[in-house]
Protein backbone atom coordinates (compact mmCIF):
# COMPACT_ATOMS: atom_id res chain seq x y z
CA UNK A 1 0.00 0.00 0.00
CA UNK A 2 1.14 3.53 -0.69
CA UNK A 3 2.50 5.77 2.05
CA UNK A 4 -0.29 7.99 3.37
CA UNK A 5 1.98 10.81 4.51
CA UNK A 6 4.19 10.86 1.44
CA UNK A 7 4.52 13.89 -0.84
CA UNK A 8 3.50 16.34 1.89
CA UNK A 9 6.48 18.60 1.15
CA UNK A 10 5.62 18.66 -2.53
CA UNK A 11 1.98 19.20 -1.63
CA UNK A 12 2.89 22.20 0.55
CA UNK A 13 5.05 23.72 -2.15
CA UNK A 14 2.30 23.38 -4.76
CA UNK A 15 -0.50 24.59 -2.48
CA UNK A 16 1.52 27.61 -1.32
CA UNK A 17 2.26 28.58 -4.94
CA UNK A 18 -1.41 28.40 -5.92
CA UNK A 19 -2.47 30.36 -2.83
CA UNK A 20 0.17 33.00 -3.66
CA UNK A 21 -1.70 33.62 -6.91
CA UNK A 22 0.06 31.28 -9.31
CA UNK A 23 -2.97 29.57 -10.81
CA UNK A 24 -0.78 27.86 -13.42
CA UNK A 25 0.57 25.60 -10.65
CA UNK A 26 -2.96 24.30 -10.16
CA UNK A 27 -2.52 22.49 -13.50
CA UNK A 28 0.29 20.48 -11.86
CA UNK A 29 -2.03 19.52 -9.00
CA UNK A 30 -4.65 18.42 -11.54
CA UNK A 31 -2.13 16.34 -13.47
CA UNK A 32 -0.92 14.69 -10.23
CA UNK A 33 -4.42 13.73 -9.08
CA UNK A 34 -6.36 13.36 -12.33
CA UNK A 35 -6.09 9.56 -12.47
CA UNK A 36 -7.53 9.05 -8.98
CA UNK A 37 -10.31 11.62 -9.50
CA UNK A 38 -11.19 10.09 -12.88
CA UNK A 39 -11.48 6.59 -11.39
CA UNK A 40 -13.88 7.84 -8.71
CA UNK A 41 -15.99 9.84 -11.18
CA UNK A 42 -16.23 6.96 -13.68
CA UNK A 43 -17.25 4.47 -11.00
CA UNK A 44 -19.76 6.75 -9.28
CA UNK A 45 -21.39 8.34 -12.35
CA UNK A 46 -22.65 6.58 -15.46
CA UNK A 47 -23.67 9.50 -17.68
CA UNK A 48 -20.67 10.55 -19.86
CA UNK A 49 -21.55 14.28 -20.07
CA UNK A 50 -22.30 14.49 -16.37
CA UNK A 51 -18.93 12.90 -15.65
CA UNK A 52 -17.19 15.75 -17.48
CA UNK A 53 -19.15 18.41 -15.61
CA UNK A 54 -18.67 16.76 -12.24
CA UNK A 55 -14.92 16.32 -12.78
CA UNK A 56 -14.55 20.03 -13.56
CA UNK A 57 -16.75 20.92 -10.61
CA UNK A 58 -14.51 18.83 -8.34
CA UNK A 59 -11.41 20.80 -9.31
CA UNK A 60 -13.16 24.15 -9.10
CA UNK A 61 -14.28 23.24 -5.58
CA UNK A 62 -10.74 22.12 -4.78
CA UNK A 63 -9.36 25.45 -6.01
CA UNK A 64 -11.82 27.45 -3.94
CA UNK A 65 -11.25 25.37 -0.80
CA UNK A 66 -7.48 25.05 -1.14
CA UNK A 67 -6.87 27.57 1.66
CA UNK A 68 -8.72 25.20 4.03
CA UNK A 69 -6.39 22.26 3.35
CA UNK A 70 -4.57 21.49 6.63
CA UNK A 71 -1.99 18.98 5.32
CA UNK A 72 -3.36 16.32 7.67
CA UNK A 73 -3.48 13.89 4.74
CA UNK A 74 -1.98 13.71 1.28
CA UNK A 75 -3.35 16.36 -1.06
CA UNK A 76 -4.49 13.58 -3.42
CA UNK A 77 -6.49 11.95 -0.60
CA UNK A 78 -8.12 15.28 0.22
CA UNK A 79 -9.04 15.87 -3.43
CA UNK A 80 -10.33 12.28 -3.68
CA UNK A 81 -12.53 13.03 -0.66
CA UNK A 82 -13.94 16.09 -2.45
CA UNK A 83 -14.47 13.90 -5.54
CA UNK A 84 -16.33 11.22 -3.63
CA UNK A 85 -18.54 13.76 -1.82
CA UNK A 86 -19.28 15.67 -5.04
CA UNK A 87 -20.24 12.45 -6.84
CA UNK A 88 -22.29 11.31 -3.86
CA UNK A 89 -24.16 14.65 -3.82
CA UNK A 90 -24.78 14.25 -7.55
CA UNK A 91 -26.24 10.76 -7.02
CA UNK A 92 -28.46 12.00 -4.22
CA UNK A 93 -29.60 14.99 -6.26
CA UNK A 94 -30.48 12.69 -9.17
CA UNK A 95 -32.12 10.32 -6.67
CA UNK A 96 -29.83 7.54 -7.85
CA UNK A 97 -28.85 6.82 -4.26
CA UNK A 98 -30.82 7.36 -1.08
CA UNK A 99 -29.39 8.86 2.12
CA UNK A 100 -28.22 6.04 4.39
CA UNK A 101 -28.54 3.48 1.61
CA UNK A 102 -25.35 2.96 -0.36
CA UNK A 103 -26.93 0.36 -2.62
CA UNK A 104 -27.38 -3.18 -1.41
CA UNK A 105 -25.81 -6.23 -2.94
CA UNK A 106 -27.97 -9.32 -2.87
CA UNK A 107 -25.72 -12.31 -2.49
CA UNK A 108 -27.30 -15.56 -3.51
CA UNK A 109 -25.81 -17.99 -1.05
CA UNK A 110 -26.96 -21.02 -3.01
CA UNK A 111 -25.69 -19.87 -6.39
CA UNK A 112 -22.26 -21.21 -5.69
CA UNK A 113 -23.60 -24.68 -4.85
CA UNK A 114 -25.83 -24.66 -7.93
CA UNK A 115 -22.87 -23.91 -10.10
CA UNK A 116 -20.68 -26.31 -8.22
CA UNK A 117 -23.05 -29.17 -8.97
CA UNK A 118 -22.75 -28.51 -12.67
CA UNK A 119 -19.02 -28.22 -12.73
CA UNK A 120 -16.81 -31.05 -11.58
CA UNK A 121 -14.05 -28.78 -10.38
CA UNK A 122 -13.05 -25.19 -11.02
CA UNK A 123 -9.68 -26.41 -12.13
CA UNK A 124 -11.37 -28.05 -15.08
CA UNK A 125 -13.49 -24.96 -15.62
CA UNK A 126 -10.44 -22.78 -15.77
CA UNK A 127 -9.14 -24.77 -18.69
CA UNK A 128 -12.13 -23.62 -20.73
CA UNK A 129 -12.23 -20.05 -19.62
CA UNK A 130 -10.74 -17.69 -22.10
CA UNK A 131 -8.95 -14.91 -20.23
CA UNK A 132 -10.24 -12.19 -22.56
CA UNK A 133 -13.74 -13.50 -22.08
CA UNK A 134 -13.33 -13.45 -18.31
CA UNK A 135 -11.99 -9.92 -18.43
CA UNK A 136 -14.95 -8.73 -20.53
CA UNK A 137 -17.51 -10.50 -18.33
CA UNK A 138 -15.87 -9.12 -15.22
CA UNK A 139 -15.82 -5.60 -16.64
CA UNK A 140 -19.58 -5.83 -17.21
CA UNK A 141 -20.18 -7.30 -13.78
CA UNK A 142 -18.19 -4.55 -12.07
CA UNK A 143 -20.31 -1.96 -13.87
CA UNK A 144 -23.45 -3.62 -12.50
CA UNK A 145 -22.34 -3.11 -8.88
CA UNK A 146 -23.75 -0.17 -6.89
CA UNK A 147 -21.60 3.00 -7.29
CA UNK A 148 -20.03 2.92 -3.82
CA UNK A 149 -19.05 -0.74 -4.19
CA UNK A 150 -17.54 -0.13 -7.63
CA UNK A 151 -15.58 2.80 -6.26
CA UNK A 152 -14.23 0.81 -3.31
CA UNK A 153 -13.12 -2.03 -5.60
CA UNK A 154 -11.29 0.47 -7.80
CA UNK A 155 -9.68 2.36 -4.93
CA UNK A 156 -8.44 -0.87 -3.34
CA UNK A 157 -7.41 -2.90 -6.37
CA UNK A 158 -6.46 -0.29 -8.97
CA UNK A 159 -5.26 2.64 -6.92
CA UNK A 160 -3.85 0.41 -4.16
CA UNK A 161 -5.06 2.71 -1.42
CA UNK A 162 -4.90 1.67 2.22
CA UNK A 163 -8.03 1.20 4.31
CA UNK A 164 -7.05 4.35 6.22
CA UNK A 165 -7.03 6.40 3.02
CA UNK A 166 -10.33 4.88 1.93
CA UNK A 167 -11.84 5.82 5.30
CA UNK A 168 -10.67 9.42 4.77
CA UNK A 169 -12.06 9.55 1.24
CA UNK A 170 -15.45 7.94 1.81
CA UNK A 171 -16.08 8.75 5.45
CA UNK A 172 -17.16 5.12 5.93
CA UNK A 173 -15.83 3.10 8.90
CA UNK A 174 -12.97 0.69 8.08
CA UNK A 175 -15.15 -2.30 9.05
CA UNK A 176 -17.85 -1.22 6.62
CA UNK A 177 -15.32 -0.80 3.83
CA UNK A 178 -13.89 -4.28 4.44
CA UNK A 179 -17.39 -5.74 4.52
CA UNK A 180 -18.39 -4.00 1.27
CA UNK A 181 -15.21 -5.15 -0.45
CA UNK A 182 -15.82 -8.73 0.68
CA UNK A 183 -19.41 -8.66 -0.54
CA UNK A 184 -18.46 -7.03 -3.82
CA UNK A 185 -15.80 -9.66 -4.57
CA UNK A 186 -18.18 -12.48 -3.63
CA UNK A 187 -20.89 -11.02 -5.85
CA UNK A 188 -18.42 -10.66 -8.72
CA UNK A 189 -17.23 -14.22 -8.28
CA UNK A 190 -20.79 -15.61 -8.19
CA UNK A 191 -21.88 -13.55 -11.20
CA UNK A 192 -18.76 -14.43 -13.13
CA UNK A 193 -19.48 -18.13 -12.67
CA UNK A 194 -23.17 -17.72 -13.41
CA UNK A 195 -22.49 -15.75 -16.57
CA UNK A 196 -19.89 -18.21 -17.68
CA UNK A 197 -22.18 -21.17 -17.09
CA UNK A 198 -25.04 -19.48 -18.94
CA UNK A 199 -22.79 -19.05 -21.93
CA UNK A 200 -21.59 -22.63 -21.68
CA UNK A 201 -25.08 -24.17 -21.51
Amino acid at each position, binding site marked *: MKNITGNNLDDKYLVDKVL*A*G*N*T*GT*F*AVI*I*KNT*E*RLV*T*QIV*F*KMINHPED*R*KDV*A*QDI*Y*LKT*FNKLGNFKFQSKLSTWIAQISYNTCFDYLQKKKLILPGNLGEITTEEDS*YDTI*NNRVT*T*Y*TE*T*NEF*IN*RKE*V*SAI*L*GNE*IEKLPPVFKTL*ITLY*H*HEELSYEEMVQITGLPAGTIKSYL*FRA*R*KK*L*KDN*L*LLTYKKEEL
Partner: protein
Amino acid sequence: MITNHLTEDELQQYALDKSIVAPDLQGHLQHCEECTAKLAVYQLLITEINQQPVATFDFDLSAAVIAQLPAPVTKASTNKYPVAIFSLVAILLAGSLIYLYRDDLLALFTNTNMAEYLGIVIITSIAIIQGIDTYRNYQKKIKALDFS
Protein backbone atom coordinates in the same frame (compact mmCIF):
# COMPACT_ATOMS: atom_id res chain seq x y z
CA MET B 1 -4.83 -29.63 9.91
CA ILE B 2 -8.45 -28.45 10.05
CA THR B 3 -11.16 -30.51 8.38
CA ASN B 4 -13.72 -27.71 7.90
CA HIS B 5 -13.72 -25.98 4.55
CA LEU B 6 -12.40 -22.44 4.32
CA THR B 7 -15.00 -19.69 4.57
CA GLU B 8 -15.50 -17.22 1.72
CA ASP B 9 -13.75 -14.58 3.82
CA GLU B 10 -10.73 -16.83 4.40
CA LEU B 11 -10.60 -17.71 0.71
CA GLN B 12 -10.59 -14.02 -0.25
CA GLN B 13 -7.89 -13.24 2.31
CA TYR B 14 -5.77 -16.11 1.02
CA ALA B 15 -6.22 -14.96 -2.59
CA LEU B 16 -5.19 -11.42 -1.62
CA ASP B 17 -2.28 -12.33 0.64
CA LYS B 18 -1.62 -15.91 1.66
CA SER B 19 0.90 -14.84 4.29
CA ILE B 20 -1.88 -13.55 6.56
CA VAL B 21 -3.81 -16.83 6.57
CA ALA B 22 -3.23 -19.27 9.47
CA PRO B 23 -0.95 -22.26 8.67
CA ASP B 24 -3.80 -24.67 9.55
CA LEU B 25 -5.87 -23.27 6.72
CA GLN B 26 -2.95 -23.49 4.33
CA GLY B 27 -2.54 -27.14 5.31
CA HIS B 28 -6.21 -27.78 4.57
CA LEU B 29 -5.87 -26.23 1.14
CA GLN B 30 -3.13 -28.69 0.21
CA HIS B 31 -5.54 -31.59 0.62
CA CYS B 32 -8.96 -30.15 -0.24
CA GLU B 33 -9.84 -30.04 -3.91
CA GLU B 34 -13.05 -28.11 -3.34
CA CYS B 35 -11.36 -25.28 -1.45
CA THR B 36 -8.46 -25.23 -3.90
CA ALA B 37 -10.92 -24.90 -6.76
CA LYS B 38 -12.79 -22.06 -5.02
CA LEU B 39 -9.49 -20.37 -4.28
CA ALA B 40 -8.47 -20.62 -7.94
CA VAL B 41 -11.61 -18.71 -8.92
CA TYR B 42 -10.88 -15.95 -6.42
CA GLN B 43 -7.26 -15.75 -7.57
CA LEU B 44 -8.41 -15.44 -11.17
CA LEU B 45 -10.98 -12.84 -10.16
CA ILE B 46 -8.49 -10.67 -8.29
CA THR B 47 -5.92 -10.91 -11.08
CA GLU B 48 -8.56 -9.82 -13.59
CA ILE B 49 -9.86 -6.99 -11.38
CA ASN B 50 -6.30 -5.66 -11.06
CA GLN B 51 -5.89 -5.81 -14.85
CA GLN B 52 -9.13 -4.03 -15.74
CA PRO B 53 -8.45 -1.02 -18.01
CA VAL B 54 -8.06 2.34 -16.28
CA ALA B 55 -10.74 4.90 -17.18
CA THR B 56 -9.62 8.16 -18.82
CA PHE B 57 -11.43 11.27 -20.04
CA ASP B 58 -11.44 12.05 -23.77
CA PHE B 59 -10.82 15.76 -23.15
CA ASP B 60 -8.12 17.84 -21.48
CA LEU B 61 -9.50 18.15 -17.95
CA SER B 62 -6.64 20.33 -16.78
CA ALA B 63 -7.10 22.88 -19.60
CA ALA B 64 -10.88 22.95 -19.10
CA VAL B 65 -10.50 23.69 -15.38
CA ILE B 66 -7.70 26.25 -15.73
CA ALA B 67 -9.80 28.17 -18.29
CA GLN B 68 -12.51 28.61 -15.64
CA LEU B 69 -10.24 29.81 -12.85
CA PRO B 70 -10.13 33.50 -11.92
CA ALA B 71 -7.24 35.55 -13.34
CA PRO B 72 -3.99 35.19 -11.40
CA VAL B 73 -3.66 37.54 -8.47
CA THR B 74 -0.69 39.78 -9.26
CA LYS B 75 1.36 40.68 -6.28
CA ALA B 76 3.82 43.58 -6.52
CA SER B 77 7.11 41.75 -6.30
CA THR B 78 8.83 44.50 -4.40
CA ASN B 79 11.46 43.73 -1.89
CA LYS B 80 10.62 45.93 1.04
CA TYR B 81 14.02 45.92 2.76
CA PRO B 82 15.94 48.03 0.18
CA VAL B 83 13.06 50.53 0.07
CA ALA B 84 13.08 50.88 3.87
CA ILE B 85 16.87 51.29 4.02
CA PHE B 86 16.82 53.86 1.22
CA SER B 87 14.05 55.81 2.97
CA LEU B 88 15.93 55.80 6.27
CA VAL B 89 19.14 57.06 4.61
CA ALA B 90 17.17 59.78 2.80
CA ILE B 91 15.51 60.94 6.04
CA LEU B 92 18.85 60.98 7.89
CA LEU B 93 20.48 62.91 5.04
CA ALA B 94 17.66 65.44 4.92
CA GLY B 95 17.76 65.81 8.72
CA SER B 96 21.54 66.36 8.67
CA LEU B 97 21.27 69.02 5.94
CA ILE B 98 18.52 70.86 7.80
CA TYR B 99 20.57 70.71 10.98
CA LEU B 100 23.76 71.97 9.27
CA TYR B 101 22.02 74.79 7.41
CA ARG B 102 19.46 75.60 10.09
CA ASP B 103 20.65 79.27 10.42
CA ASP B 104 20.41 79.87 6.66
CA LEU B 105 17.00 78.22 6.52
CA LEU B 106 15.77 80.32 9.41
CA ALA B 107 17.01 83.48 7.69
CA LEU B 108 15.19 82.41 4.54
CA PHE B 109 11.84 82.48 6.36
CA THR B 110 12.50 85.58 8.41
CA ASN B 111 13.77 87.93 5.66
CA THR B 112 11.45 87.03 2.80
CA ASN B 113 8.48 88.77 1.30
CA MET B 114 5.12 87.29 0.15
CA ALA B 115 6.30 86.61 -3.43
CA GLU B 116 9.23 84.53 -2.20
CA TYR B 117 6.94 82.56 0.12
CA LEU B 118 4.65 81.83 -2.80
CA GLY B 119 7.60 80.67 -4.91
CA ILE B 120 8.76 78.24 -2.19
CA VAL B 121 5.24 76.78 -1.79
CA ILE B 122 4.83 76.29 -5.57
CA ILE B 123 8.25 74.66 -6.01
CA THR B 124 7.65 72.36 -2.99
CA SER B 125 4.16 71.38 -4.29
CA ILE B 126 5.53 70.59 -7.76
CA ALA B 127 8.31 68.48 -6.19
CA ILE B 128 5.77 66.51 -4.09
CA ILE B 129 3.44 65.93 -7.09
CA GLN B 130 6.40 64.81 -9.24
CA GLY B 131 7.51 62.44 -6.49
CA ILE B 132 4.03 60.83 -6.18
CA ASP B 133 3.75 60.51 -9.97
CA THR B 134 7.18 58.88 -10.23
CA TYR B 135 6.26 56.40 -7.47
CA ARG B 136 2.96 55.49 -9.23
CA ASN B 137 4.78 54.90 -12.52
CA TYR B 138 7.28 52.70 -10.71
CA GLN B 139 4.49 50.57 -9.19
CA LYS B 140 2.80 50.14 -12.60
CA LYS B 141 6.05 48.97 -14.18
CA ILE B 142 6.71 46.50 -11.36
CA LYS B 143 3.22 45.01 -11.78
CA ALA B 144 3.77 44.69 -15.52
CA LEU B 145 6.99 42.77 -14.82
CA ASP B 146 5.26 40.22 -12.55
CA PHE B 147 6.74 36.83 -13.52
CA SER B 148 4.58 34.62 -11.32
